[in-house]
């Protein structure tokens, strides 16, 4: 893919990113940060793609660490976000006063 196409995608994605988070209530700042945090775990794909045909042992180790890091970022990120959002799950049980 040529550089200009990539830059075009980059700029458009930036605008989408800006627009999609226009105004968020304070309560959701942390879950939203955690959610976006999980999404940049996409670097995991980078780890998959840099595996070459004949890497040395050092490179193999670096790659495994990179993939593991990316996986932690993705899996941990989404799970933690889900736990944080737990407060919005039990919405129907509105009144604890009996």
């Amino acid at each position, binding site marked *: 893919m040529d550089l200009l196409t990539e830059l075009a995608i980059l700029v458009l994605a930036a605008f989408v990113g800006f627009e999609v988070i226009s105004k968020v209530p304070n309560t959701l700042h942390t879950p939203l940060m955690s959610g976006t945090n999980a999404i940049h775990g996409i670097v995991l794909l980078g780890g*998959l793609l840099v595996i070459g045909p004949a890497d040395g042992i050092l490179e193999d180790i670096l790659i495994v660490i990179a993939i593991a890091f990316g*996986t932690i970022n993705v899996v941990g990120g989404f799970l933690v976000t889900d736990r944080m959002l737990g407060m919005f799950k039990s919405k129907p049980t509105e009144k604890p006063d009996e």
Partner: protein
Amino acid sequence: MSRGDLIALLYIVAFAMFIGGLHMLRGPRTAVRGNQVAAVGMAIAVIATLIDQRIGDWVLIVLGLVIGTAIGVPSARSVRMTAMPQMVALFNGVGGGAVALISLVEYREALEEGGNPPLDTLIPIIFAAIIGSISFWGSNVAFLKLQESLKGRFPIPRPAAAGLAALILAIAILIAAGTEMEWLFWLLVVAAGALGVLSVLPIGGADMPVVISTLNAFTGLSAAAAGVALDNTALIVAGMLVGASGSILTKQMAEAMNRSIGNVFFSGLGAGGPAVAAETGGTVRSTSAADVAIQLSYARLVVVVPGYGMAVAQAQRAVADLASELERRGVEVLYAIHPVAGRMPGHMNVLLAEADVPYEKLKEMDEINGEFGRTDVAMVIGANDVTNPAARTVADSPIYGMPILDVDKASSIIVLKRSMSSGFAGVDNPLFYDPKTSMLFGDAKASVGEVLAEVNQL
């Protein structure tokens, strides 16, 4: 349809799910589903990449995925609600670390395959390595600070940070000029890491949310740069989405605390650590559970101001029980939630929701500050800095300018606190010496329990 087309198509589906998921994360009603949508999008992106023909050596892939899952899942499951912010910092850090490592491997491979990569690959690689490494080490320092393994401020002389930045720039130019020396690239990663450490070290704990959010945006940008280097649209789009949305989020967080991002990052540099004015002194009135019970029971409006101390003591359920008993007696009980009460925005909401406190009783700062004038009793439970009137008056205080809850406007104030130690920001709180204030010392959960017992006897 070729395999490449299929991959591209799956990526597009994943992008739509990322954007949709982020959009849904903006509202309380859709947030849970939004997170799930984004997670499924991620799974699709990973699967799409795995069917790429260029993918080799499944042993490495499986090994990495298994190790990552084995570490990520249990740590996300077991982390206590109070430690969530640290966990986010760590997860963010490893993401940045992954980017730095990928850049390093990509550069090595290019050198092995016959020399310097073209500039349109090399420049993004260098950028990704620098930002990824800053994010990794910066996040780890943020983690240690939030864990309180690293206490206090570490003033870093401004020339040290500036010199390091200049060194990084110089190395980057040398690499881009085509020196083709691998050790230079390692040095680049190490120097960027050192800059990450130095940048976060001097920052006070109360500003950590803004720091983590900034580093989160950084990791996103570095992922996008890695995407340009690797010609991978998924990395470009997802990374840039996070880079952009993370920046906006950082700005909003900083605004909620009345701080500018520059202020957060540079106020600790150069200044030899702001001198903490402990001028207040004065006397502190201590009270008993029975007295508190009487004050509360005969109040019309009680405003509970929860803080990190409530989280640590796990007192949220006790507080909710006390509140519903008071409500049964006709007392109106509201909760004042400061944007950064606890260690993160939303921290208190999570805890109180866990204790089944109805969402509409949690009032944000702007909403509740007008109410303190007619509040009979403000009950501060383990909150400190967010109630500190010094933020309004003492210009040289580290928290000067931070919007606070106007607790001191209430007719009387009860502060539940373990001891007279200062808050996370390390600042003395004149509120405690206010003649209207009485202190109930002890573990928050135990104290609230005693008060409830006394209320029941009235």
